[in-house]
């Protein structure tokens, strides 16, 4: 897009259109989106294959470890947000009425529903993992006693036996749970038998079938499709299925035989390559696993199981006093187990993240449906909902941005029956947060001198200054630019790229305005909000809270922005 055209009159910026043309910048956006997805996923690949400069900053976690999953989910949430911003929101519903999309979008939505069930199953699976962690913790606690006495060893053995039997039970077909539980109960040395997943779904529910159902009708679009939206929708479906597939493979889940074969990725697309790389690696692990009949590919579980067996072996041959050699060996194993247990502490945030994922999917689906509804309502040529349609008059144009903002910000909740396209797109509707929640976006930039830093901040404040922006910061190294506020992330990204070519969107989080533990006290909330908020907590649960999940604390995952005198803050 030529950089000079945004000084034109507002009339040029706002045009009323009936027909949809995919503009140049939109195509650019869509391509960017595909690239971002590929980038995010390739960061998750093991380092050997990908020596990104980022790898130096964040060494990639072990494949299929809990930390890896946390990153995977983060990546997915980012992709999802961008998908919504680029493909769904602010778009005319008629876009989706055309031939491939009218099928693709509902199919995608159907997949998201299936993903929800998987999310629920995963949530339960994590419960089970937490149980295993506790058992491992018992073993660790008792084996850390000195000197290791008979009693300590026995205690550890009991806990580990329970753990191991729980792992193997879980692995046998879950729908024969009754039997398995009975078998576990027979084993004298168990600590609570967990009917792990029995109540989550009906017995016939199968994670692997669910994945299969999600991926079976996912067919690569042919080349030269009319709209540029086809590929992104297709891509998003794939990412969704892939993430679910990986989770089901790793975390205990009801019935997942033959999972390895259920995902076929298209080779012809660039963005699919990191996914294929990941899939191959996981697939190999899965094949090994299926032969051995073990549970869950989660790195921690695998290691826990191995260590567990070793320690039980040690315990079985235990005589007092322990030989020095053996003691050292055990000590080493216990140390490793301690490390695993520490890593498993991350399970709770992971579980919350899965819940967040769940709710994000629910919300996105609702929003997408709203956009589609608009379509069908228009077909009936009925005035939409109860909102008066907005008349674009000269006055409106004079008020320009202020009004456009209103129009666009409310376009989720209020269905305004006109299409306003602001051509420089700084009024494109809030991408991640539909309800105008402030978001915190970290851009990865390369701004090593004061001048370029200032330039960058100017650029971004210019774009997003039109929106509600709370702060812009650049950290000391000039590697990260953090912008907090309600604004268009895509647009901000483009502006920044003019200053620094390598700009990437690193993370997007939604800032919680009313969290007690918030990291970013939002002083800038409009004054009129303040008195209102104080009235609300009369009936605390039922007053409206923005639909995000406050208990999912987005971890400042990538880089925490340091608070130093160097950083500039614009309020």
């Amino acid at each position: 897009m030529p950089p000079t055209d945004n000084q034109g009159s507002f009339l040029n910026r706002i045009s009323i259109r009936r027909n949809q043309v995919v503009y140049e910048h939109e195509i650019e956006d869509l391509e960017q989106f595909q690239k971002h997805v590929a980038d995010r996923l390739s960061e998750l690949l093991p380092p050997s294959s990908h020596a990104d400069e980022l790898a130096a900053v964040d060494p990639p976690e072990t494949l299929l470890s809990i930390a890896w999953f946390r990153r995977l989910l983060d990546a997915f949430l980012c992709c999802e947000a961008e998908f919504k911003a680029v493909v769904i929101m602010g778009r005319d519903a008629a876009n989706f009425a055309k031939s491939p999309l009218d099928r693709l979008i509902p199919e995608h939505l159907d997949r998201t529903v299936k993903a929800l069930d998987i999310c629920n199953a995963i949530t339960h699976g994590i419960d089970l993992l937490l149980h295993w962690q506790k058992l491992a913790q018992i073993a660790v606690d008792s084996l850390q006693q000195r000197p290791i006495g008979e009693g300590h060893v026995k205690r550890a053995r009991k806990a580990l036996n329970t753990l191991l039997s729980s792992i193997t039970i879980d692995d046998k077909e879950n729908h024969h749970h009754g039997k398995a539980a009975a078998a576990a109960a027979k084993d004298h040395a168990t600590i609570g038998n967990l009917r792990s997943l029995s109540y989550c779904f009906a017995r016939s529910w199968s994670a692997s079938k669910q994945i299969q159902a999600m991926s079976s009708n996912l067919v690569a679009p042919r080349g030269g499709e009319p709209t540029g939206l086809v590929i992104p929708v297709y891509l998003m479906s794939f990412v969704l299925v892939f993430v679910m597939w990986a989770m089901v493979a790793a975390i205990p889940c009801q019935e997942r035989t033959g999972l390895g074969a259920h995902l076929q990725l298209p080779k012809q697309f660039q963005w699919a390559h990191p996914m294929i790389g990941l899939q191959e690696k996981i697939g190999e692990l899965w094949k090994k696993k299926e032969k051995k009949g073990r549970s869950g590919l989660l790195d921690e579980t695998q290691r826990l199981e191995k260590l567990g067996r070793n320690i039980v072996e040690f315990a079985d041959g235990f005589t007092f006093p322990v030989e020095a050699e053996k003691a050292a060996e055990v000590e080493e194993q216990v140390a490793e187990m301690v490390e695993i247990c520490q890593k498993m502490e991350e399970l709770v945030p992971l579980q919350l993240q899965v819940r967040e994922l769940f709710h994000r999917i629910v919300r996105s689906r609702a929003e997408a449906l709203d956009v589609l509804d608009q379509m069908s309502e228009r077909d009936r040529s009925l005035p939409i909902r109860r909102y008066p349609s907005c008349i674009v008059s000269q006055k409106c144009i004079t008020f320009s941005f202020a009004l456009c903002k209103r129009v666009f910000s409310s376009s989720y909740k209020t269905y305004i029956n006109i299409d306003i396209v602001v051509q420089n797109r700084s009024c494109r509707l809030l991408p991640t947060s539909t309800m105008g929640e402030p978001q915190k976006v970290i851009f990865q930039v390369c701004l090593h001198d004061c001048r370029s830093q200032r330039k960058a901040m100017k650029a971004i404040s210019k774009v997003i200054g039109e929106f509600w922006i709370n702060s812009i910061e650049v950290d000391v190294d000039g590697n990260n630019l953090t912008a907090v506020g309600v604004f268009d992330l895509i647009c901000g990204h483009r502006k920044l790229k003019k200053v620094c070519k390598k700009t990437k969107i690193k993370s997007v989080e939604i800032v919680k305005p009313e969290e007690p533990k918030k990291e970013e006290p939002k002083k800038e909330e409009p004054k009129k909000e303040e008195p209102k908020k104080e009235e609300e907590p009369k009936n605390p649960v039922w007053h409206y809270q923005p639909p995000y999940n406050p208990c999912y604390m987005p971890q400042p995952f990538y880089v925490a922005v340091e608070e130093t005198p160097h950083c500039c803050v614009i309020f």
Partner: protein
Amino acid sequence: MEADQDPSNLHLHDDTLTQQIDRFISSHDPPDHILESVQCFSLLFDEEVVQYESGTKKWTLHETSSFLVSVERTSKLLHSLSRFQSQDDYAAAINQISGIHQRAMSFMEDEFKSILDDYQTSHDRDQKNLDEAASSPSDDQPQPDDQPVDDNSKDNFLGYSDDMISNLKKLAKGLIGGGHQTECSELYFFVRRNAIEHNLKLLPFEKFSIDEMQKMQWEPIEKEVSAWTKMFKDFTTSLLPSERRLVDAVFSSSSSAISDSLFGNLARIVLFYFLTFAEGVMMTKRAAEKLFKFLDIYEALRDSIPQVEKYLSDDWLLQLRSVASLINNMLGDAIFTIFGELENSIKADTGKTPVPGGAVHPLTRYTMNYLKLACEYRDTLQQVFREHKKIIDRADSATGSDWDPSSEEVTQNVDEDHGSSFQLQLGRVMDLLDANLEAKSKLYKDPSLSLIFLMNNGRYILQKTKGTGEMRSLMGDPWVRKRSSDLRSYHTNYKRETWTKLLQCLSHEGLSVNGKVMKPVLKERFKSFNAMFDEIHRTQSTWVVSDEQLQSELRVSISAIVIPAYRSFMGRFSQVFTPGRQTEKYIKYQPEDIETCIEELFDGNAAQQGKKR
């Protein structure tokens, strides 16, 4: 027990032995002979544990304490001995004691579990007793705990007797004191979790996945929702509080963190189970008939979540609230949208076939019944609308920098002055319905019939509104007054439309010239009166006025204008005709006949009878 030489005459709780050990525990220097005492103690305790394990010694409430004292002593001893672990003979003693300690702990774990597991039988017995209303004395064993259970739910520890509770309490204390806190809480958690699952399984409530619910018909889900609402209330008001009491009772001697986290986890499971269903229902395709079930869920959540909240500790509370508020928002949104859909469905009803006989239109019936039901949920709907408005306001104010802060206050004032947005919405729906009916009335060719149609529908709307207290108060007196006056004007217009012409025939004017009656004109008048009246009778008796009161009102008012006029007309002019043939020919109706004919109007099915006559 190979070497029982020395301790054979000693008792485990022998004063000298225990004192010696306790002294060792409390002091810091190793006294002489302590290892011997430890040896002695361990052998004795080992024997006791073996007795318990093999079942020769039964676990009773009284002996528990002494056993627990020994266990406590063992763990303390273990701790004290560990100071001297570098010395080999002490290390050996540690080994020995730790082994016994572990066995004792293990035994206690088993005991704890078996007592906990015992809930089923006693709980089921409670159930049975409750079901049969204690009518059958078949359970002959004395159950001292049963009476209070039935009478006072406060004492109901989910089917655990007081003895069991105090046993559990002691065991939990012992286990936690002995460092087996994790085992103890895991055990507790799994037993209770299985118990809850067992309870859930017994419920007449099928578990569907969200995906399945998407594909299901609404009717089965509807049934599930009714079951769900009831059970959700049950679980939150009775089961969860009892769980909390139980966990508090069992872990009363240890820190509240344990019971908080245990209960939090259990509550999470229960709530997760129920909330997933709510989420699933909510995600099904929105449709008008779902409104009331959505409202049921909304109300259940609104009422029950705070009940649970009381029992949760802070971090669990936060989790629950966030989930609940999410569901609440989405439900609110769905309800709002669905209710808004009503407008669309009214607008969309543009059928071109008039209802025969001007009867109440199905749309009117549907809409009014819908609104009547909706008004039963009036408070909830008002809440939903209020909250929804907040969302929109916030979305506006969060982005619109030029948003005038005063306008919010203005709207709020408006809200108070002119009623809630729900009320406004209701008014809008009524107006739409009116407009739609107005348009539909134009479909009738006969203006009288379209008036009858309007009267019928208007009457129906008014009656429904008046019949529902909530709706009446929402619509307000002015509205009711306006509707009534509308109805009256329809009535008047109808009378004018249909009966004025007829009455013109009965006019005395133009009949007599110079005091002499013009016979041909009179004949003509009677003829046309008869024809017109026949026609009116024929058509209008097929018309429908189903509201009895309205029907009789109409008949009475028609009679009131027609019959006196006819009577006087006849009285004045009947003698003009020569009696006999002529009279018979022209005076077809006696006033009484007219009255019966009027009585036959608006019957809907009187068509044939009218013709036969």
